[in-house]
């Protein structure tokens, strides 16, 4: 058991024992290797089921929306930014969450690791920065850093931006020279090529809405995809409807997306849906100098304006 897991269990059970929170949100072991599931602990005993490893890719801020109980929540850097978003958007008051911060060194990309073995992975072990995977008759030792998810590779907020407690010492933040290289690569394509890039990206989409459900930003009581009068978007597998869905889903995250990668983690078809949101992350940073979830003192870009904003594209 690593130190993070030990401390998470200790802090959580102390909180529950003292009655300072009604429940703690954390990660529990999934049923397969390389899987973790969000879990709730309401008693100190249940808190002993919490784990922390490099497979905690989902975003727990998703589960605190409009909750009435006092919640303890395990939060890595991106989760904590989403909690800031939630507080800013009046989805939960600050004093209703007890944030157990986890300084994070990144989560691994399960697809790239799975592809290494011919057969399924039977065992996944992590020791410090080294990972051991074992399948039928095969075994590989990996350097964790080489297998980080794309969003973790370019993350510059690994430490929680707000926290009430920490499970370990703060980690060193990365310095990324060109964080938007991925977006620039798509921007460099010709119009038709870009269209085809997204066409190929979405060709597998089954409209399960897992990306929407995993996203802490998506909490509207009635989502635009469910509205029927008027019906903004068809229900089926029509390519236009699929593209419209992905465009609007991304657009609703404009100026709010923390690039936590929960959407990609949840996608059962392994679609890189971040290709949509990344463009908005880049634009809100480059045009409005905004990185979401870092401060409670400024309002997000689409909620405010400056009279001197650029008019150049307007006739």
């Amino acid at each position: 058991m690593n130190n993070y897991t030990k401390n998470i269990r200790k802090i959580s059970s102390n909180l529950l024992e003292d009655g300072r929170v009604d429940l703690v949100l954390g990660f529990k072991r999934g049923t397969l290797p390389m899987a973790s599931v969000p879990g709730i602990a309401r008693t100190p005993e249940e808190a002993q089921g919490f784990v922390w490893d490099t497979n905690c890719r989902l975003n727990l801020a998703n589960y605190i929306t409009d909750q009435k109980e006092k919640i303890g929540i395990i939060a890595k850097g991106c989760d904590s930014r989403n909690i800031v978003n939630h507080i800013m958007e009046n989805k939960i008051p600050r004093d209703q969450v007890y944030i157990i911060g986890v300084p994070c060194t990144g989560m691994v990309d399960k697809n790239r690791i799975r592809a290494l073995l011919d057969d399924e992975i039977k065992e996944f072990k992590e020791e410090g920065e080294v990972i051991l995977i074992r399948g039928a008759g095969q075994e590989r030792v990996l350097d964790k850093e080489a297998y980080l998810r794309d969003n973790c590779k370019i993350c510059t907020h690994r430490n929680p931006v707000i926290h009430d407690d920490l499970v370990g010492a703060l980690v060193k933040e990365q310095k990324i020279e060109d964080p938007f290289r991925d977006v620039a690569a798509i921007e460099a394509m010709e119009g038709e090529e870009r269209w085809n890039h997204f066409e190929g990206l979405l060709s597998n989409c089954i409209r399960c809405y897992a990306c929407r459900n995993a996203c802490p930003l998506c909490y509207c009581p009635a989502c635009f995809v469910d509205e029927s009068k008027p019906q903004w978007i068809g229900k089926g597998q029509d390519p236009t409807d699929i593209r419209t869905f992905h465009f609007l889903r991304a657009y609703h995250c404009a100026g709010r997306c923390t690039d936590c990668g929960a959407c990609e983690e949840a996608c059962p078809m392994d679609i890189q849906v971040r290709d949509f949101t990344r463009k908005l992350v880049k634009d809100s940073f480059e045009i409005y100098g905004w990185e979401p979830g870092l401060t409670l003192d400024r309002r997000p870009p689409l909620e405010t304006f400056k009279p001197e904003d650029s008019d150049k594209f307007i006739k």
Partner: protein
Amino acid sequence: MAEKRIKIVAFLCNWCSYGAADLAGVSRMQYPADIRIIRVPCSGRVEPRMILAAFREGVDGVWVSGCHPGECHYLEGNYYARRKFVLMANLLSHMGLDKGRIHFSWISSAEATKFARVAREVAHEIVSLGPNEKLVKKAG
């Protein structure tokens, strides 16, 4: 006679651009007949999903027009709209839609000549791009 006529949807704000269209009409100014006008309370009311819905129904271009900055009937609706439009237009073009299919303008209700001129520019650009195939929902 087989050629499909270009269709452009214009979302015009009630207080300025719609007034300009009205004035252009009563002044008998010439502007292209490809434009279908939808009157909205404010350019800030226009949402991306409305624009996508228009494309889905088969229009070839969209034009959104409101009051000049500082002259919004609701004081600041067009300032918010301006920020929305930047991110929206950028993302649409990032996805591969031709940039020339979406246009924005500020036209006050006295600027009938500007309305006619911009209408000609918008129509000219969209006609030159030809019928839109992208984001259109095809039957079947």
